[in-house]
């Protein structure tokens, strides 16, 4: 932990720096590219939103960072820099020292992430004992404290319960307790509230942001819900068909999107403040991984598509100050006048 802290703060002020990440997966019919040149970074204590529809590669990016993909059927390229190490080339035992300790993850469906045959208290202790020299008693005490910190009313009792005894919201609280118990520097939250009711979602988001703020944990927040991103993130990136298509500070992107896909996503959400009527939607569907369009991957669905779009699109950066940097993967972004929300 100490070592890591020094190298990152001394080196550069990014905590996680993904550079040109490519990922291919193998199924019965051979290799297929799932991620193409994904670059994104998370700064210490920052909350980065990653948005996109199903199949855009946002969860695959998360799984790549933690190297949770089947080693034989996946191939990673590019760099994932974290604490001075390139996670792409780390050994499995090095990864075990990082997972849960320096980077942890919360999944959408807590029931599949928790082990049904162990009590939740035991599962939190296990994480602690894996990374710190603690005896069972100390670990149990800290597990109870962790459950207490996520707003569970009787933590001592809940620690003795099995996942099946808990409601969806409670399970997600347990997952958060487990993910943050080692005070990791980065938390990857993959659709953490999608399976929950809105009132519970509000509780969980409030809790998550509060705890992250207290422990100084940065969050890579993966969601399809632009409202949650608007409400909780500092910066955001939009992904489409395995690529990052737009990135920048949340407020700027929402007020003035530069990629037609981001704009489409923003406008397809029903908004009670807007006149009712036909909702703008994005025609067509996400291209299949095996049949990616040659040029702009969004081209076939884009209402602004024209000749230059048949060429591959590169990410263009803009803005000198790093914090306000915006990037967009659209050759025509300067000509397009896309409408944002609330601008």
């Amino acid at each position: 932990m100490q070592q890591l802290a020094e190298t990152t703060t001394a080196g550069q002020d990014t905590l996680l720096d993904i550079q040109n990440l490519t990922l291919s997966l193998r199924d019965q019919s051979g290799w297929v590219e799932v991620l193409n040149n994904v670059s994104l970074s998370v700064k210490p204590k920052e909350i980065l939103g990653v948005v996109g529809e199903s199949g855009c590669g946002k969860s695959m990016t998360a799984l790549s960072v933690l190297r949770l993909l089947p080693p034989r059927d996946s191939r990673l390229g590019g760099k994932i820099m974290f604490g001075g190490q390139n996670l792409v080339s780390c050994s499995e035992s090095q990864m075990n020292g990082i997972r849960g300790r320096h980077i942890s993850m919360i999944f959408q469906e807590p029931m599949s992430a928790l082990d049904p045959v162990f009590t939740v208290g035991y599962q939190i202790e296990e994480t602690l004992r894996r990374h710190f020299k603690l005896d069972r008693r100390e670990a149990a005490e800290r597990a109870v404290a962790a459950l207490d910190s996520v707003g569970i009313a009787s933590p001592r009792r809940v620690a003795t319960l099995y996942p099946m005894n808990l409601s969806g919201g409670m399970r997600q609280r347990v997952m958060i307790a487990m993910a943050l118990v080692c005070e990791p520097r980065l938390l990857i939250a993959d659709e953490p509230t999608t399976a929950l009711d809105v009132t519970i979602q509000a509780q969980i988001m409030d809790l998550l942001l509060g705890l992250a703020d207290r422990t100084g944990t940065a969050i890579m927040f993966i969601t399809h819900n632009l409202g949650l991103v608007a409400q909780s993130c500092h910066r955001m990136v939009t992904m489409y068909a395995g690529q990052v298509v737009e990135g920048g500070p949340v407020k700027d992107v929402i007020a003035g999107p530069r990629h037609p896909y981001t704009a489409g996503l923003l406008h397809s959400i029903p908004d009670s403040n807007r006149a009712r009527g036909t909702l703008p939607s994005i025609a067509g569907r996400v291209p299949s991984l095996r049949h990616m369009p040659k040029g702009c991957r969004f081209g076939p669905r884009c209402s602004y598509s024209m000749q230059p779009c048949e060429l591959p699109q590169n990410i263009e950066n803009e803005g000198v100050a790093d914090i306000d940097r915006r990037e967009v993967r659209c050759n025509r972004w300067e000509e397009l006048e896309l409408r944002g929300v609330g601008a």
Partner: protein
Amino acid sequence: MSVGAPSEETALDVNDLHVSFGNPRRGSLIRAVDGVSFSVRKGEIFGVIGESGSGKSTLGRCLVGLLSPSGGGVLHDGVDPFRFSRRELNRHRRKYQIVSQDPNAAFDPRMTILQSICEPLNIAGEGTRAERREKAFAMLDRVSLSAEMANRYPHEISGGQKQRANIARALMLDPNVIVCDEVVAALDVSIQADMLNLFARLQEQFGLTYVFISHDLRVVSHISDRVAVMYFGKIVEFGPAHAVIETPLHPYTEALRSAEPEINPAAAEARQRIILQGEIPSAIAPPSGCRFHTRCPRVRDICRTQEPQQRQLLPGRHVACHFAEEMLGDREKSGLGHAGGNGADHAASATNALT
């Protein structure tokens, strides 16, 4: 959203409906729907909002006759379907269709889309084989699915396409009423927008009546004429969609509205965030008095003992909360905050927003 103004005739009359499960003698009685009354006009889109465990899906299933009420009743166009024999009920039910959330579970993986869509007609024994096929293709066209989809199997098409096929199938028997239970919940936002547009268009073309059940406030308020908000088996508030969403008169509706993440930064700042504590209580042991009192930010002593009665506060707006009048007063005083107009026509717009 419906284009033609809904007529005064009612398509569904729900009167003090109760649906319970379990055994009262073993103390495991669950009152999933507990005394719900409302009516849906012909050609109307009626929204039902609620969280999981609120009883909204049970209500939906009962509306189309898939579950029998344990008290009160439902009238379909003035007729009580639960007095029919099994056979009559099956006949009658053709006109009352339900489309459910998960399109993957709704199709037999071994049947092509065309076979699945023709099935309702096969069961009803209507028309010749060629006529059924012809009708199926017409319906596919209506839901904007190309004819080549007809011979595919469910695993060969996307979730959005499956949900369209699901709707096409529900339309095959020319229903009067379609209950849509979380039909867009499993879809991505861009597909969801397409589906909502499709529902609106079909409503216009066929003069359908929808009951649109969802947990998503935005979706329901976008598509519905009127909405009912359910909590723990009861309707806590109902009225015109826009008014209920913009100026809620029940603390639960208010909390739901506030929990909905806001995209527009200006609107987010203007809004007061209410984060409800706790979760929906156990269904077997409902709280005394007002069922929302365990989580209500405005709870007072009376709420713990006495159940609030549903009453009409403004034309068409019904609320079940002891302090609804007080909330209404506050809203009127504050000029309806963000929902109202600006300056001069404040009072006029205030009244408009409330009804």
